């Protein structure tokens, strides 16, 4: 039987009109909040979330219920609930879909969290690059306040909860909760060392609970249907479902939600429809710049927090990029490192300098001047960066390098020893050659060549001077007789 989707976080996406609160209420919206306010004690709410086994969907995978418990404990005049909607992973758009398609589910869960930990103010920290999500959130907040489901004295229970928006400004590191809080306070989004955890000292120095959008989107369903129901879905340690943004070289690019424990193969082939143009599967990247590239031998790995870490990647926020035979894994590692170098906040040395060094070595390798010692150096340096960086960004940034070395070692060796790129993605390692029997000497390639690297008389065989060739591919594109080969 083919694997099926199971929609909990996305239960209303694509079904309801996100700008109409009545649509949401018709599908049990705000009933969970009502249930908590009318009957459940604060402790009981925390207990339910804890018992459900819900874990942070932003990547870390920490128990949500325990996080709430930590924030509920301290006595304070003010506390805050923060929703992390700074979806910065390249290739991930789960949060955007939830906020655009079902904003009330996040608002309701934030209010439930506020009740559970004793907070009256909620903030959604959202990317400024998501104008539609921002617009729909604003509409939803206004509607909920008008209906008396947010604001002061909600449903005459004496509970007050208001929600505000804060805009991010494009910094990947702000997904880290301490950096996010710094950014909310108007500073550079640099992380600080923990402890103290935000649960004791967070936004404005007050106890703060930060959860990701998808985590919140599960909460109302858990309260309505019970912790046992949620805990019955998934695997032993990873409960419920996970939303993935399936993209790259897969037929059905899209947003999917599957029970934890579904295998990568089921996700890519049953739900994703297999590889685009029926090419050969090469790798799947999970966890974004903090994750790793998994290969054919991992296809039957069940998707849960522990299994993905054990195979050298991580759950991450849910980006899942499929790569085929035409992708060069060394270049992919370089791509992620380029991202990390740009996004490192620069506060701690291992991340700031170490990742730059990793990038330089990878650049050397993809440009044909790498050595075998460089591969060892990559590994050594990666271990140091992982163990000494200040925050999650640096502690995970070498994962794309380590996982590609582990799973695609031969590709590294080929780049270093043979100076070749199997996938033909690394331009500097390509060689353009004239296939003599096909060349009619028309001269089209010669005229197209910007480096004057093609020699030959009209109507005679041409040839390419490799010393001069800048590997731009212009000749290859111009030739109508299949007389240029790429090696």
């Amino acid at each position, binding site marked *: 039987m083919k694997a099926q989707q199971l*929609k909990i976080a996305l239960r209303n996406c694509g*079904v309801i009109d996100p700008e109409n609160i*009545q649509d949401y209420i*018709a599908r049990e919206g705000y009933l969970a909040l009502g249930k908590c306010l009318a009957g459940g004690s604060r402790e009981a709410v925390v207990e339910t979330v804890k018992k459900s086994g819900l874990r942070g969907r932003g990547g870390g995978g920490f128990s949500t219920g325990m996080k709430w418990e930590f924030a509920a404990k301290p006595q304070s005049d003010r506390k805050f609930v923060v929703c992390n909607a700074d979806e910065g992973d390249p290739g991930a758009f789960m949060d*955007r879909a939830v906020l655009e398609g079902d904003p009330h589910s996040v608002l309701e869960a934030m209010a439930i969290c506020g009740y559970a930990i004793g907070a009256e103010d909620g903030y959604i920290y959202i990317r400024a690059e998501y104008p539609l999500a921002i617009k729909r959130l604003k509409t939803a907040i206004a509607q909920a306040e*008008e209906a008396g489901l947010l604001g002061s004295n909600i*449903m005459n229970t004496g509970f007050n909860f208001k929600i505000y928006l804060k805009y991010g400004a494009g910094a990947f590191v702000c997904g880290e909760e301490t950096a996010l809080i710094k950014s909310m306070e108007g500073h550079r989004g640099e992380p600080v060392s923990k402890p103290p955890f935000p649960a004791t000292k967070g936004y404005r120095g007050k106890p703060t609970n930060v959860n990701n959008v998808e985590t919140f989107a599960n909460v109302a369903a858990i309260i309505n249907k019970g912790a046992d129901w949620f805990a019955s879905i998934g695997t032993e340690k990873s409960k419920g479902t996970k939303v993935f943004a399936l993209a790259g070289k897969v037929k*059905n690019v899209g947003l999917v939600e599957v029970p934890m424990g579904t295998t990568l193969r089921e996700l890519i082939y049953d739900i994703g429809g297999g590889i685009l143009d029926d090419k050969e599967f090469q790798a799947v990247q999970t966890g974004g710049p903090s994750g790793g590239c998994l290969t054919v031998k991992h296809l039957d790995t069940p998707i849960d927090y522990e299994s993905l870490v054990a195979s050298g990647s991580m759950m991450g926020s849910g980006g899942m990029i499929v790569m085929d035979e035409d992708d060069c894994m060394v270049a992919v590692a370089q791509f992620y490192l380029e991202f990390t170098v740009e996004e490192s906040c620069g506060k701690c040395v291992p991340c700031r300098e170490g990742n730059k060094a990793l990038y330089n070595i990878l650049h050397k390798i993809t440009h044909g001047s790498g050595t075998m010692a460089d591969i060892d150096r990559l590994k050594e340096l990666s271990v140091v960066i992982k163990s000494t960086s200040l925050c999650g960004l640096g502690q995970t940034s070498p994962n794309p390098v380590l996982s590609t070395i582990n799973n695609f070692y031969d590709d590294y060796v080929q780049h270093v020893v043979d100076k070749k790129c199997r996938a033909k993605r690394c331009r500097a390692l390509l060689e353009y050659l004239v296939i003599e029997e096909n060349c009619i000497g028309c001269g089209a390639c010669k005229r197209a060549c910007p480096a004057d690297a093609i020699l030959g008389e009209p109507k005679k065989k041409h040839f390419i001077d490799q010393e001069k060739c800048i590997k731009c591919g212009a000749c290859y594109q111009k030739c109508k007789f299949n007389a240029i080969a790429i090696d």
Partner: protein
Amino acid sequence: MEKVTNVEQLKALQSALSKEAEQAASKKVIIRIAMATCSIASGAKPVLDFFTEEMPRQPLEFIIKSTGCTGLCHSEPTVEVTLPGKAPVMFGKVDVKKANEIVNDYIKGGKQIEGILEVSRS
């Protein structure tokens, strides 16, 4: 919307609204057009405009809803049509021409037409 002043009132409102939705589904054509960022980028707006202009000209009761992401990025813009008492049917890569076909052939004519996606709604 009227202010909800206690939890019981919310429960009553919920059951009234869900009953209303059920009744609507039994006699009205429900058209859901995905209007998320990627749907709009692939051309959902003219499709939505077409339905909102065209449907009132038909002798049918209908509801048009613009929704969020259906998760079917590969086939945006998507339109889901539920005929009274029938299971929802999802159309992919809908443009105005296709929308016209959906109205005339599928909704009015009751014919099976191309472009139906295999999806199940849990």
